[in-house]
């Protein structure tokens, strides 16, 4: 009984105090006049919003559920393509020094570029908003995957390579039994960073490209001056980002040695 109390006190009380304080400050700010709606007003609005998340009136007026799913879809496609290209590329860059030296100036130069700077190129090449948004996700999530996978391959302990040499393993066996499992934790770190960036970028990209999606929805609600919905969107984006992160941390835990 005392144990349970202690557990409660250590794990649940501090976050609850934090949230309560946050809500208190928020309502204080909302009290001071201005257009910022308070927590209660936002909550009421959220209840209405989530009671019918999947309605479809017009292409520009669809339920919050659809907006979230569309955004997740774009992230999934852009991120998936980036993984498909970035991870094998990372393996090759890590394994072959020549390729590493060849690509390193380009990667170092392009990596710090804000993902949105790539949007006009996407619009120009694909001549459509949707592929351009996916392109931005692709380009922003490919760098962490290349860099982390390559680092994992480079940091392969010499001991494991000696084992491979002494046992005279084939290239395929070296890859499946040594290189891949040894690199997996690094790769998962890259994936986690990439998906975090991708989810960060999608809101901004959709604000610019329009269509159905959580980013565009925020912009649309701003034009409607529906501030409650904007606040709800911020929470939705935050919670989904948190869930994605937690999911990948769980996967990474499974593969740490």
């Amino acid at each position, binding site marked *: 009984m005392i144990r349970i109390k202690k557990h409660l006190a250590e794990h649940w009380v501090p976050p609850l105090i934090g949230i309560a304080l946050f809500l208190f400050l928020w309502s204080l700010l909302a009290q001071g006049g201005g257009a910022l709606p308070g927590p209660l007003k936002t909550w009421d609005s959220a209840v209405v919003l989530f009671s019918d998340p999947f309605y479809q009136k017009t292409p520009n007026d669809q339920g919050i559920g659809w907006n979230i799913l569309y955004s997740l879809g774009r992230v999934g496609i852009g991120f998936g393509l980036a993984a498909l290209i970035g991870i094998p590329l990372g393996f090759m860059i890590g394994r072959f020094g020549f390729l590493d030296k060849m690509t390193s100036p380009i990667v170092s130069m392009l990596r710090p570029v804000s993902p949105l700077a790539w949007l006009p190129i996407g619009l120009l090449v694909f001549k459509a908003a949707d592929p351009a948004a996916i392109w931005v996700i692709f380009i922003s999530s490919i760098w962490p995957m290349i860099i982390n996978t390559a680092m994992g391959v480079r940091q392969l302990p010499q*001991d*494991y390579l*000696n*084992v491979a*040499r*002494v*046992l*005279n*393993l084939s290239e395929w*066996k070296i890859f499946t*039994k*040594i290189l891949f*499992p*040894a690199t997996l934790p690094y790769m998962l770190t890259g994936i986690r960073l990439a998906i975090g960036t991708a989810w960060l970028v999608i809101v901004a990209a959709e604000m610019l490209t329009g269509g159905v999606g959580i980013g565009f929805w925020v912009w649309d609600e701003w034009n409607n001056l529906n501030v409650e919905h904007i606040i709800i969107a911020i929470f939705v984006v935050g919670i989904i980002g948190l869930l994605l992160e937690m999911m990948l941390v769980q996967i990474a835990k499974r593969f740490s*040695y």
Partner: protein
Amino acid sequence: MKKYVQIENVQMSFETKQGTFVALKDIDLKIDPGEFITLIGHSGCGKSTLLNLIAGLLMPTDGIMLCADREIAGPGPDRGVVFQNHSLLPWLTCFENVHLAVERVFGNTESKAQLAQRTQEALALVHLSHAEHKYPHEISGGMKQRVGIARALSMQPKVLLMDEPFGALDALTRAHLQDELMKIVAATKSTVVMVTHDVDEAVLLSDRIVMMTNGPAATIGEILTVDLPKPRNRLALANDAHYHSLRGAVLEFLYQKQAKKAA
């Protein structure tokens, strides 16, 4: 008698920023089948380098190296290596770690059941049958090293090469594994080359102790034949005069003839 391992006039140098560094020179050593050889010397004397040369992990700058009359041109399964830090793959179970080696050597000629049986026999040899489905992080340091020995022996190598295999273990575990190693070597009639810095270990296990001079340009200083009868028992030897004279000879070489200058 046919020489198993033949090392003639071997020299090993490394290119460094300060120029050529000669690690080993004029190494001549012949090892008979079934012999247990230890390499002993101060750190930096190139004893691990010599072992890596026999393993084929390094290629000599000059000289001839043969194993069973064939030139050593790289690592091969005819020379099983036990590393100091066990070097088991952490994502594979003990069984899978050994099986990887078995599969490589016998995979083309034997059935899956035979391969599994070889793996189990190797683990049984080091008394680890009960731990075959455990991962390396679930077993003790001594057990890991035993899996490493099982992995090396499972390939039925012509020579077993061990690089300070018990160096990282506590004294009691080390003694236990030395006793086990003596039994395994007697049962399998293995030829062994072992690097060590432990004088007692060298005298207890060896047929001959190869004592190396200090580097750079280290070479073989003396070779001491240990003619103690086998099987050897560490308790009986503790009061054996001949054991102590052999031990004294090694100590004299290390601390008098090759005394390290205070660093």
